[in-house]
């Protein structure tokens, strides 16, 4: 049974709000990003298991990235990544022109600062998912212009 994707959106927004407030007053943005990233990581590890459960083995790293851009992104955000670029040396840039979590935010620069917090959990989820299938990496998050954003994956040398 699929749950409507707005539930995830609402839940995520509430997680960000609750974590921002913290226990003893407001958390710093750095701490907030870290916590959200950690949460996303564990969710990514679990979710990729589900997504890849009945799938043939991945052929190589590029196969993994294509899967992330299509099936994985679709299962989480109800759309595919719009553009994938790579230098074929371990750096991949995933561009999403209408990021799911920015859906209800204004397209102007009004919320850009807060919007960065909305990429922390997704960035962590991406990193956790990739780590689980054997691609250890760092993930950079960048807002190009609302509601478009980029995730830059740098595969760590093994």
């Amino acid at each position, binding site marked *: 049974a699929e749950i409507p994707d707005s539930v995830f959106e609402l839940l995520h927004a509430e997680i960000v709000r609750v974590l921002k407030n913290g226990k003893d007053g407001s958390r710093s943005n750095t701490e907030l990003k870290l916590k959200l990233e950690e949460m996303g990581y*564990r969710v990514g*590890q*679990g979710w990729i*298991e589900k997504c*890849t459960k009945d799938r043939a*083995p991945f*052929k*190589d790293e590029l196969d993994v990235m294509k899967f992330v851009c299509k099936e994985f992104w679709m299962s989480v955000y109800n759309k595919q990544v719009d553009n994938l670029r790579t230098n074929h040396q371990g750096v991949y840039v995933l561009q999403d022109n209408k990021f799911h979590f920015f859906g209800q935010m204004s397209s102007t620069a009004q919320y850009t600062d807060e919007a960065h917090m909305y990429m922390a959990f997704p960035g962590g989820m991406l990193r956790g998912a990739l780590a689980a*299938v*054997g691609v250890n990496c760092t993930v950079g998050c960048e807002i190009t212009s609302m509601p478009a954003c980029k995730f830059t994956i740098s595969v760590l040398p093994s």
Partner: protein
Amino acid sequence: AMAVVCVAVVSKENYPLYVKTTVPDSDLKFHYLVHTSLDVVEEKVSFLSEHARGSSERRELYLGQLYPSEEYKIYGYVTNTKVKFVVIMENTNSYAKDNEMKALFKKLHSAYYNLLRNPYYTPGHQIQSKMFDQTVASLMQQSSK
């Protein structure tokens, strides 16, 4: 049908997460068998992906029988998250059909995924879930009927 005497779950980094046997006082023996079978798993996984262009490309998670042994038949399966399942069966005259083994591994894989959905389980840690243990126990029991 043949009796399943051992089910093991091995982590991505090749250390055991769970080993269950139906034979009393044989834990060490089965740990050893699982350990040696990992070399074969690595071989099968890397050989097939090196020769990936064309027909020898690995198309499924099920690896089939890993290596012949006098006493046992040892089967393997690797998830896309590099978690390995090893199932050891008594080597009787009958043999288990591929379909039956694949179905068994699929059930194991489902049980493992359900384990990941448990908030108290951290991937890479020892599996102590009673629910997982019960599922495996019933799979092992069913197979010997």
